[in-house]
């Protein structure tokens, strides 16, 4: 049970981070930064802008923790929310049209603490469809999904191929199929 173990470890890390442990912060950032940047890219930001907003978000969270203003730390949701506010602010200052940021809606929805930032970004129904799509993958695809997306350490396709007794090309092919199925699930119409 990799995920619960990782979650428990995450809880310990979070508690340490809230007590000002810089090593814990470094580990949490390393674990969650990719999802923060992906969330920003998904909202239409260019890579450089996404990277800067993510870095600024982490810096602000650290600052808030040092000033004793951080009571809880739900990641990556809090960092995503912070990063999106930073991106919105930057767009306003630059007087640029918020291309895909949907400023007002994003601010209102993401401020809703009852939903995770990812859920808000992806939409609960769409995320549920993604869950179902993953749940319906064949056994061999599930094995690749777990190895590539779930397990810590982010093994290369070559490492996954060796472990599962597949060719690297086959692993790549299966990952493409997984992405296509989840994409298709996300694209389905609501209702």
């Amino acid at each position, binding site marked *: *049970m990799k*995920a*619960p173990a*990782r*979650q428990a470890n995450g809880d310990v890390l979070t508690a340490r981070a809230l007590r000002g442990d810089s090593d814990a912060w470094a580990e949490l950032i390393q674990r969650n930064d*990719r*999802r923060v940047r*992906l*969330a920003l*890219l*998904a*909202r*239409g930001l*260019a*890579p*450089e802008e996404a990277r800067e907003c993510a870095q600024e978000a982490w810096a602000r969270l650290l600052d808030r923790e040092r000033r004793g203003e951080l009571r809880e730390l739900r990641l990556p949701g809090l960092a995503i929310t912070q990063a999106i506010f930073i991106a919105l602010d930057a767009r306003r200052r630059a007087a640029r049209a918020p291309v*895909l940021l949907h400023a007002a809606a994003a601010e209102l929805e993401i401020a809703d603490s009852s939903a995770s930032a*990812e*859920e808000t*970004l*992806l939409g609960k129904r*769409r*995320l549920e469809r*993604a*869950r179902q799509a*993953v749940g319906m993958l064949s056994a061999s695809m599930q094995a690749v*999904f*777990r190895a590539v*997306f*779930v397990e810590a350490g982010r093994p*290369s*396709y070559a490492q996954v191929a060796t472990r599962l007794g597949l060719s690297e090309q086959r692993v790549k092919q299966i*990952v*493409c199929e*997984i*992405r296509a199925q*989840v*994409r298709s699930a*996300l694209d389905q119409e609501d209702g």
Partner: protein
Amino acid sequence: MDDDHLDDEIIDAYLAEALEDGARRATEVHLGTCTACLARVSRAAETELALLTVAAEPPPRRTAIVRRTVVGVAFAMAAAAGLAIVLRGPASDPAQPTPAAIEATGSIEPPQASDLVFADAEEQLQLPSSAELVVFVPEAEP
């Protein structure tokens, strides 16, 4: 690149952070000027985020099975304890403790709700409606 646009494979590798530094930089330079590819990256990033979000969730199915097993075992133990009380004879026997006394002294402890539920409330709500709980109840002596 195909017709001056990024291949899907490059986009996937970029989002998976699997590109070498040179290829990553070239991809980002291209994305700085090509809105069509940036829109494709945005779409692919959403898919990747969905995959990582689902991957980060604990597997609910297995949790439910484990919980059912623990609850079933706990109920079976409780039922066995009840059977032991029945086999000890009538409660009026002054040499034997009554079931109430057993419960009060804790010599045979009934399962507490807090012992049976170890998942958080959110997980409990995710229990499939078809979850079955098998409880072994000893039949009363004639």
